[in-house]
C-alpha cells in the first residue's frame, strides 16, 4: 500500500500494516530531514508532490517489487508540506518470510523513489530557500 500524507508519519502504524504471522523479517527505511546541507544550517524542509502522478508511480513501484521478490507486504508513506528537522519524510516497510528479500526490495524502493517519483524538497535557510535538484543529492 502507498500513502502521501500531510501529518507526522506514525511508524508503529506502518509496521502494523506490514505485519503477518508468516513474516520472518521486515526491513524499514526511514528518511529524516537533516539539519545541514553543504555545511549550511537548514531551518526546516518543505515537500511538494505532484500527487496523482506520485501515487501512480508509487503504486507501480509496489507492484514491481512484488514481481521481483517473494514479499509479504509493502507500505510506502511519503510526507508532504512542512517537515521539522529530525522528523521522517518517508518510511518504507517491506515484510517477507526471509530477510534477504526484504532488504533488497526496501533498498530498490527508496532508490527508485528518489530517482523517479515527482516529489520535491525545499530547504529553508536563515538567508533564503532552495529547491533541491536530484543532481545535488
Amino acid at each position, binding site marked *: 500500500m502507498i500513502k502521501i500524507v500531510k501529518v507526522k508519519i506514525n511508524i508503529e502504524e506502518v509496521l502494523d500494516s506490514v505485519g503477518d504471522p508468516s513474516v520472518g523479517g521486515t526491513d524499514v527505511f526511514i528518511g529524516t530531514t537533516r539539519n545541514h546541507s553543504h555545511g549550511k544550517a537548514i531551518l526546516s524542509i518543505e*515537500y*511538494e508532490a505532484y500527487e496523482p*502522478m506520485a501515487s501512480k508511480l508509487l503504486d507501480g513501484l509496489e507492484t514491481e517489487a512484488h514481481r521481483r521478490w517473494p514479499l509479504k507486504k509493502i507500505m510506502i508513506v511519503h510526507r508532504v508540506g512542512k517537515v521539522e528537522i529530525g522528523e521522517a519524510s518517508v518510511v518504507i516497510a517491506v515484510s517477507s518470510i526471509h530477510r534477504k528479500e526484504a532488504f533488497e526490495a526496501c533498498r530498490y524502493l527508496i532508490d527508485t523513489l528518489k530517482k523517479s*517519483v515527482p516529489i520535491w524538497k525545499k530547504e529553508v535557510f536563515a538567508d533564503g530557500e532552495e*529547491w533541491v535538484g536530484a543532481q545535488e543529492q
Partner: protein
Amino acid sequence: MMKVRVKFFANVRDIVGSDEKVVTLPVDARASALLDELVAEFPAIGEWKPHLRIAVNWEYVPPDHSLQDNDEVAIIPPVSGG
C-alpha cells in the same frame, strides 16, 4: 489548434509564478515544442531545460511524444523526494 493544461512544480513554478497554465498548440504538437514555447515565454526556464522531464497524463514521455487535445502535461524538474 488544441489546448493542453500544463502543470508546474518547485523551481519551475516559482519562475512561471503559477502552478498551472492552459497552452494552445498546433494539433499533434510534440512535447518538446511545448517546452520550447515555455522557454520562449519564461527564459529563466532555459537554464533548467536539460534537466526537465515531461509527463503526460501522469506518465513520463519522450520529447517526441505527440500531445493530444485536453492532455494534462507536467513539467517535472529534477525530483528530490525521499
